[in-house]
């Protein structure tokens, strides 16, 4: 019955004390006349206290006369009485109104633009485009037409496949999906050549259509023509065809890493210090000392906005910079460990450059001393498909 209690509080109620020989009669008469009473409490043999609404209180006077009780008011509770007390404080009321107005005004602007779902397109680019179109922090919400913004964005950024704008509170939540680049496929009836997509040595070539220009064992450079889309028939007439071939080539990938025997390592200590500043719109005002307390440090930034709930966020906030001290520690590395580390790191590096479809045929590791450390060079031989179809330009 919390709601009832709140309702009673808003309406205002009076705690009354009824004295008489038969307070029961008083209660019964009240109920018969439709006066709602609650929290009726017997104080002693002759008095009863109860609560009654402000409006119903006026109706009690005839009941009191009829039942010959004595009635006195114990307390007045609720919002109307509270308001009456503050009635003369005009500035206070004005302040309340201004506060509510400010909250309403500030919450009718967009204050943050959040972008989710992008992997390749930088967030800044999306935000910049949005602000050019007219969706940025500080824009009045009713002005925003999400439909046109979505359309303009789709035209503006080609890589977008889909974009949604959700305005919730003072936040504009942008969700995007990026277009997956489709491989260039040349229709089967369009004549084309096959060129090398990479440097390498041809390992195997199997031509289904077209004239091969290279053989097994030929060294090719990127862009070299491998299979021509031109076929000469018995009469010596040239005909353009859609060249098709499986061409596998040996390709090489190389990476190297140097590991020094003595190096300085960075270790984070537990020493942290917070520096606070206040953010007002785009301005950041430092509170006290904003310089870093340490010589070597990591810094994390955390912004806490003043907000109402989750969605209504105002453009004011406290920025905390958490500085963590770092220490530089000199470390000696044994030669065998350095070798191992260098080899591992070179392998990790080279793995990133090898395409997924390539088959690794051979792997060679060369370790050689370099100034103050070791250098690991890794050479990976792969066999992979290198042919790329290219339209013939007449």
């Amino acid at each position: 019955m919390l709601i009832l209690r709140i309702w009673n509080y808003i309406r205002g109620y009076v705690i009354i004390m009824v004295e008489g020989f038969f307070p029961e009669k008083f209660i019964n008469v009240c109920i018969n006349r439709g006066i709602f009473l609650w929290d009726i409490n017997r104080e002693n043999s002759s008095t009863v206290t109860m609560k009654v609404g402000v409006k119903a209180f006026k109706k009690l006077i005839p009941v009191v006369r009829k039942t010959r009780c004595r009635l006195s008011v114990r307390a007045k509770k609720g919002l109307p009485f509270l308001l009456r007390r503050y009635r003369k404080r005009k500035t206070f009321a004005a302040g309340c109104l201004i506060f509510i107005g400010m909250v309403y005004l500030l919450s009718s602007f967009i204050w943050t633009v959040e972008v989710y779902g992008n992997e390749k397109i930088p967030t800044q680019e999306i935000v910049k485009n949005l602000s050019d179109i007219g969706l940025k922090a500080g824009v009045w919400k009713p002005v925003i037409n999400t439909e046109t913004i979505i359309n303009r964005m789709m035209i503006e950024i080609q890589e977008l496949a889909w974009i949604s704008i959700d305005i919730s509170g003072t936040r504009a939540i942008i969700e995007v999906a990026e277009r997956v680049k489709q491989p260039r496929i040349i229709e089967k009836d369009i004549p084309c050549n096959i060129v090398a997509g990479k440097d390498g040595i041809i390992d195997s070539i199997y031509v289904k259509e077209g004239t091969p220009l290279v053989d097994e064992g030929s060294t090719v450079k990127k862009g070299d023509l491998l299979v021509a889309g031109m076929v000469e028939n018995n009469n010596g007439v040239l005909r353009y065809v859609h060249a098709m071939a499986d061409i596998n080539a040996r390709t090489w990938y190389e990476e190297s890493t140097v590991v020094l025997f003595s190096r300085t390592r960075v270790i984070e200590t537990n020493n942290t210090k917070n520096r606070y500043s206040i953010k007002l719109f785009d301005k950041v005002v430092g509170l006290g000392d904003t310089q870093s307390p340490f010589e070597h440090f990591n810094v994390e930034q955390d912004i806490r906005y003043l907000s109402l709930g989750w969605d209504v966020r105002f453009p004011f906030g406290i920025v905390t910079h958490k500085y963590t001290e770092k220490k530089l520690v000199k470390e000696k590395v044994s030669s065998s460990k350095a070798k191992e580390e260098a080899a591992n790191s070179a392998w990790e590096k080279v793995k990133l450059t090898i395409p997924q479809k390539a088959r690794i045929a051979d792997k060679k590791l060369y370790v050689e001393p370099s100034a103050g450390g070791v250098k690991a060079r890794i050479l990976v031989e792969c066999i992979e498909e290198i042919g790329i179809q290219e339209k013939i330009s007449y």
Partner: protein
Amino acid sequence: MPRKSREKAGRTRKEKRDGISLKEKFSEALELPKELILDVPRITLIGNRQLFLENYKGIIEYEDNKVRIKTHEGVVSLEGSGILIKEITSEDIMVTGTISSIQFQY
């Protein structure tokens, strides 16, 4: 006043003789709520701390250890301690406190 109440009592007795049993059968057959058909109180008790009585006529006596409520089925008398009438309307009454006994008095 006394004549009027006697008349009323007479009617209830008469109803008791023939009418109510029929009404009771009727409500049982159709599975209708009995308190509506028979005009008797419906009492809901939550532990020994709260009692909710619907369909009552008036309060006869109210002390902090005893409440007597008039209903169509006689007087319902509650005993206990710290008894408080939490809410009262023309149809129902809610009593809280520590209730130790409920008794029907005819």
